[in-house]
């Protein structure tokens, strides 16, 4: 059997399994059929198995260079290393959709096997939602030619067209699967929420599964976005990591809403509040994943990436509208279940601050979405386009032509809002629930505020007076002091009551509440990330220099000398390498060798950046080009302060997210006392809060 036939058979089987499962859900809901319930439950792992076979069929074809399959002929070649052949599974549209479908089915199957309790109607309805999503993908992959990975060619070419050299990079290989993993996880909270609402189970709206899947989605999305930024930084050679391009914005949208959701879900679990906000965030995050796919694949937005106008976009638009209409209808229908169980007693407590940060994050989402979609809205809806000249400097254009907002828009709107969210994050550890929160905050704010003021003074003494930098310092100082102070108090209390050394007590404190301390680790990562963004965007410098071999020039704090220029031949490309020596005023030297590569097969030229990273700054050198006579060579030298902190912050955030998801490791009687029964069984008592209320 050929790979194409096997793949299409597997996809057909997946569609069939979805249909059987959906019939089962209907039977379970209407007739209380236990057989229907079983069919619905087990169809989910079966769909996953079928899609696994389809993925294996495509992977096998890719490794075998089966160029009778159009997709494989377009994205690989015989000379490609096996690892990249396999990675070509998600290099193109069809393969990446298959991967997304497979990951969604995997998450759904895992949930059905691990969490589904028999004869629970809300689980059956949730399964039905997941099966509908699965059926959408199966239909797309089977019947839409531009989305079908197993379309065959009448005649197989002798060799394929190869993989874009820009994609031949480890970060780029890992970036798409991480994003899709995040997108896949978003389907679960949506399904569970809609299932609980439809079945009238107000107690199951935001249980542990919802929180954990949302957290997992957030974690994968974070890793995926950071890998994309890292790839752009080291591979594209423009010295930056984020350009506010529609593609990047598209993946940021669900990240913003899921960041809000992982926080406010906790408030619902512990206090029975913010239910409507959570419902909107959960449905919205899923819809935004679909919107992101629509933006990147429909060609609706002018981007540097110049997306083709793919018909697949239309299907995602229809899917998006159906998802919004369907979940919106359920939310309105069951609005009584979404009523808050307790009144909001104070603005200055956790519930108030989570509401505020949720509102801010949603506003950021709206701003980024509006900026990204504005050109399309103006084109489709002329009155909006006619308004534009009235509010922009570009009035003289008279509304002609398409346009877009560039990075200045996002930087001046989104970054201040982001800093405000980080400000709320900073006081997080000292907040508590309930009516007494305002008094407690007043009492506990002094020490962290002192930390923030100290950080400002330290920065000013060091000679940095930029207002944004000082605001970041205030947030960082406040946040660090609040976190460390809070943690230290918990540890000393634990050491006093539980005995043992400080390290043991610290470990037990962390282990007793992964959610709290994993979250604080994420916040620490956010602070490092903020430092990286602030350092590189406020204090980054760019130099352009043209050098001949053996000559040197003064660039910033260095004397830069072009030692040699040499050609190196590799298997599938030829590289020109420039060896530069940087000597600073103290006489310290470093050597950096940027390259330009010429790929024979594609005729494409790529730049290989030379990078020296330290905790203080990155030195980032690009071989920009050579004069026609080949003697003068142009270089771009970027000095990007604190960029390493971006990636370290990303690692810390990832680690924190993992800590949040892990179950407690240490077992001791003292710890089990610390966990009291929460509202939904998942909530954990907070030692810090107990102390304050005591």
């Amino acid at each position: 059997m050929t790979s194409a036939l096997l793949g299409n058979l597997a996809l057909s089987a997946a569609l069939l399994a979805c249909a059987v499962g959906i019939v089962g859900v209907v039977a379970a809901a209407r007739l209380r059929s236990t057989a229907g319930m079983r069919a619905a439950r087990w169809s989910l792992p079966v769909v996953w198995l079928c899609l696994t076979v389809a993925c294996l069929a495509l992977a096998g074809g890719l490794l075998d260079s089966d160029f009778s399959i159009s997709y494989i002929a377009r994205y690989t070649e015989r000379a490609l290393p096996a690892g990249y052949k396999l990675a070509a599974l998600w290099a193109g549209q069809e393969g990446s959709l298959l991967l997304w479908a497979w990951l969604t089915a995997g998450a759904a199957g895992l949930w059905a096997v691990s969490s589904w309790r028999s004869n629970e109607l809300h689980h059956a309805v949730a399964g039905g939602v997941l099966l509908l999503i699965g059926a959408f993908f199966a239909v797309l992959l089977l019947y839409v030619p531009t989305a079908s990975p197993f379309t065959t060619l009448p005649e197989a070419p002798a060799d394929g067209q190869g993989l874009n050299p820009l994609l031949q990079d480890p970060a780029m290989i890992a970036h798409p699967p991480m994003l899709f993993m995040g997108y896949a996880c978003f389907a679960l909270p949506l399904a569970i929420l809609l299932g609980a609402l439809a079945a009238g189970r107000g107690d199951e709206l935001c249980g542990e599964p919802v929180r954990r899947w949302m957290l997992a989605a957030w974690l994968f999305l974070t890793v995926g976005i950071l890998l994309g930024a890292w790839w752009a930084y080291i591979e594209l050679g423009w010295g930056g990591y984020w350009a506010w391009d529609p593609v990047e914005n598209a993946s940021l949208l669900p990240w913003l809403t899921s960041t809000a959701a992982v926080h406010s879900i906790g408030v619902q679990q512990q206090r029975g509040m913010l239910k409507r906000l959570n419902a909107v965030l959960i449905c919205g995050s899923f819809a935004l994943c679909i919107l992101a796919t629509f933006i990147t694949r429909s060609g609706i937005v002018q981007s540097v990436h110049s997306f083709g106008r793919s018909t697949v976009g239309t299907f995602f638009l229809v899917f998006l509208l159906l998802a919004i209409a369907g979940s919106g209808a359920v939310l309105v229908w069951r609005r009584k279940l979404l009523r808050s169980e307790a009144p909001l007693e104070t603005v200055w407590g956790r519930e108030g601050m989570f509401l505020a940060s949720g509102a801010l994050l949603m506003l950021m989402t709206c701003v980024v979405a509006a900026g990204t979609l504005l050109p399309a809205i103006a084109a489709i809806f002329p009155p909006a386009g006619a308004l534009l000249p009235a509010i922009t400097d570009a009035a003289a254009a008279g509304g002609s032509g398409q346009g877009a907002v560039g990075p200045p828009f996002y930087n001046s709107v989104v970054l201040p809002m982001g800093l405000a969210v980080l400000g709320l994050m900073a006081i997080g550890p000292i907040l508590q629930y309930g009516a007494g929160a305002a008094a407690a905050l007043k009492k506990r704010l002094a020490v962290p505020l002192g930390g923030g003021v100290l950080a400002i003074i330290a920065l000013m003494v060091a000679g940095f007076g930029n207002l944004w930098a000082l605001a970041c310092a205030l947030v960082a100082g406040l946040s660090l002091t609040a976190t460390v102070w809070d943690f230290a108090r918990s540890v000393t209390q634990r050491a006093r009551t539980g005995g043992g050394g400080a390290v043991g007590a610290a470990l037990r404190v962390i282990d007793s509440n992964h959610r709290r301390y994993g979250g604080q680790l994420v916040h620490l990562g956010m602070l490092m990330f903020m430092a990286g963004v602030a350092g590189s965007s406020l204090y980054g410098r760019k130099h352009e220099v043209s050098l001949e071999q053996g000559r040197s020039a003064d660039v910033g704090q260095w004397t830069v000398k072009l030692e040699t220029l040499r050609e190196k031949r590799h298997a599938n490309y030829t590289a020109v390498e420039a060896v530069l020596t940087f000597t600073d005023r103290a006489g310290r030297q470093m050597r950096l060798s940027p390259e330009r590569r010429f790929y024979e097969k594609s005729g494409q030229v790529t730049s290989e950046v030379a990078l020296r990273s330290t905790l203080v700054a990155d030195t980032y050198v690009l071989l920009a080009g050579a004069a026609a006579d080949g003697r003068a060579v142009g270089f771009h030298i970027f000095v990007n302060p604190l960029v390493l902190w971006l990636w370290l912050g990303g690692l810390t955030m990832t680690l924190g997210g993992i800590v949040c998801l892990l179950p407690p490791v240490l077992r001791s009687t003292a710890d089990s006392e610390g966990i009291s029964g929460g509202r939904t069984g998942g909530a954990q008592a907070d030692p810090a809060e107990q102390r304050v209320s005591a």
Partner: protein
Amino acid sequence: MTSVHRKFLIAGGVLLAAVAYLAYAGMRKGWVYYVPVDQFVADARLHGQRVRLMGRVSGDNLQVDGGAMTAQFDLLGPARKVRVKYRGVIPDLFKAGADVVVEGRLRDGVFEADVLMTKCASKYDDSHGRREMPG
């Protein structure tokens, strides 16, 4: 309405107003028109402002100096053309016949650009056979 609700409404109103103002100011600074070459040449109102031009690089009169990092070329529309002078990193995919986007403004009859982007087919493109670009 309780006093807490009132506080939240006031805070929300202030927040919305602040964001609306930021967005308005950001739009004024950040909005750039995308204009095809022909329309740009024909519409004198566009000549004084910063725009993004889309067109194809002509093979004639193409001067690229990678050492000095400048490029001068004719940007072609279907009927008309405009002379572009660009300074900065020459993208890897820049060559005669490439579809490019330049951003800048017209000065003394020459379009002075500080942004030059080559367009390449996305990896999620229907037109089979073109090279993909990550995105």
